[in-house]
């Protein structure tokens, strides 16, 4: 898996978080907000961690 793939996955996680948080916080189930928050945090943490690991396929 290259850096580009991981960055892409982090991006998708952050984009997917938005509708889940919107839905969960405006009448939807709380679990949607929780999953959205976890996805958003995971995306940010993954991007930060990428600085400190060496992967092939520099993006």
């Amino acid at each position, binding site marked *: 898996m290259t850096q580009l793939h991981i960055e892409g996955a982090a991006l998708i996680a952050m984009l997917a978080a938005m509708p889940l948080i919107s839905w969960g*916080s405006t009448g939807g189930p709380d679990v949607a907000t929780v999953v959205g928050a976890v996805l958003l945090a995971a995306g940010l943490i993954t991007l930060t961690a990428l600085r400190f690991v060496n992967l092939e396929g520099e993006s």
Partner: protein
Amino acid sequence: MSSLPAHLHVLAQASGETGDVPVDFWRWLLALSPILLLLVLLVVLGWGATEAGPLAVVLSAVAAVVAFEAPLQTLVVAGAKGVWDSVPILLVIVAALLLYRVGTAAGAFHALRIGVQQQSRNEVFLVLGFGWVFASFAQGIAGFGAPIAIVAPILLALRVRPVYAVVIPLIGHAWAKFFGTLGVGWVATLQVTDVEDPQMTALLTALLLLIPIFAAGIAIAWMMGRLAGVRHALPMILIIGTVLGAGQIGFVLVSPELSSFLAATLALLCLYPLSRWSRYRNEAPLDDLPAMSAEKSADDTEEPAPVMGLGWALFPYAVLTVVSVLVLLVEPVAALLEQVSFAPSFPEVSTGFGVVNEGMAAYEPLTPLSDPGGFLLLAALVSWPVYRARGYFQAWRDRADPPPILSTTVSDSVPALTAVVTFLVLASVMSHTGQTEVLALGIAAVAPPLVYAFLANIIGIIGALVTNSSTSSNVLFAPVHTTIAETQGVSQAAVLAAQSAGGAVGNVVAPTNLILGTTTTGISGQEGAILRKTIPWAAVVAVLTGVATIALI
């Protein structure tokens, strides 16, 4: 006049209360810390934006919880809003890269360089023409960083070094940020605060914007050929600068919303007679052109003939201009296209200090068909089959080896998109938790009236740096300035003008603009190198604007 999506953006951000956050030195320093961290990581340590952005978000979130009494729900909603805020910019990035790759695969940029050099072989004239005048024109009709994404690849085609290809349009179009895109920054200011004398405020703003107009022309000429470059470009700088500056001052009295667009259009028309002048038709008599790529005339004689004429090379930009002007100026067309609209809902969130962000059933509606990203995408999708039908892709493949369009667009986009999302999450977290207001109030609290007047434009710059938008800078800080101007007894018109000019200038250090430029010129990760050139320019302009503001109050 059509209502703009950006207006809705303004209204969305304006809704809420700034609360009662204690403004002390430590809170001010904590609010500043994510920005300081970003600058250190980007400029000093040379990290890329994708790496620096997430760390700044984490620091901002920790500061929000520790010192700004932000509950977790507020952070989560702010983060989600930040992701949504980034979507229009993501569209611009993907569409601009697609347009760039279509042009590259068809040999359009090669043809563009050959074509414009037949009109003028003067590099200083061409770079000022595209990087200053055309970028300003593009800002008159588009926003969200589109002028940088459009002009930087063109400058690259003219053999400007990549870092300069980003820096030049960044500073070249900054002045047009406030009254550009149908005056969205101006309209926003009128919406969020009670402007006592709108005409005087608009006039003073246009006067202060003379500084970045001329500073841009001089700086670009300096980058091209140092002092000799400035001397050579001086007549052009004076003519174009006067048309842009005096044009905007004149038009702002009649229609602030159209003033940048009309002034930039006039300046664009002035380029033709200037290109007929032998001074700017022939090569610039300069020994050294530090902003230009070294490999020049050596391979000029050996390079392949263009596959298309200048007209076809400019075809995507003609499509872009026609569509943009049509949508922005013809209300029925805009109204029709704005029918396609998406918007998420968000609840009201607040902090322990009473910073309230109201709930919204439709937060910042995205209207992709009438946004700059949509215009760029249309230009790319129209040009692609047209170039294919005329056989340009095949003809250029026979002479060069261009990379594939779609896969390269995707691989170029991903790092830029992640960085933009993180920066807008950062902006949203800071504004939802009162950190951005504390930054401005902290400066005003310790500054006597004259110092405050001097610093007013720097508050605007900080706003644009934090929010990546001159409009959002004014939305956040114009009401703050109104309050401070009243308590300190200084002219509201002058400080609002300084804030607006600062917000426009701040775009040269706004992270998302840097990313747009580095991505479309293939130097992702070199945002720090761009900042090392734009920060000194912004500092000089800020000092001059501060001095001018003191004279105006």
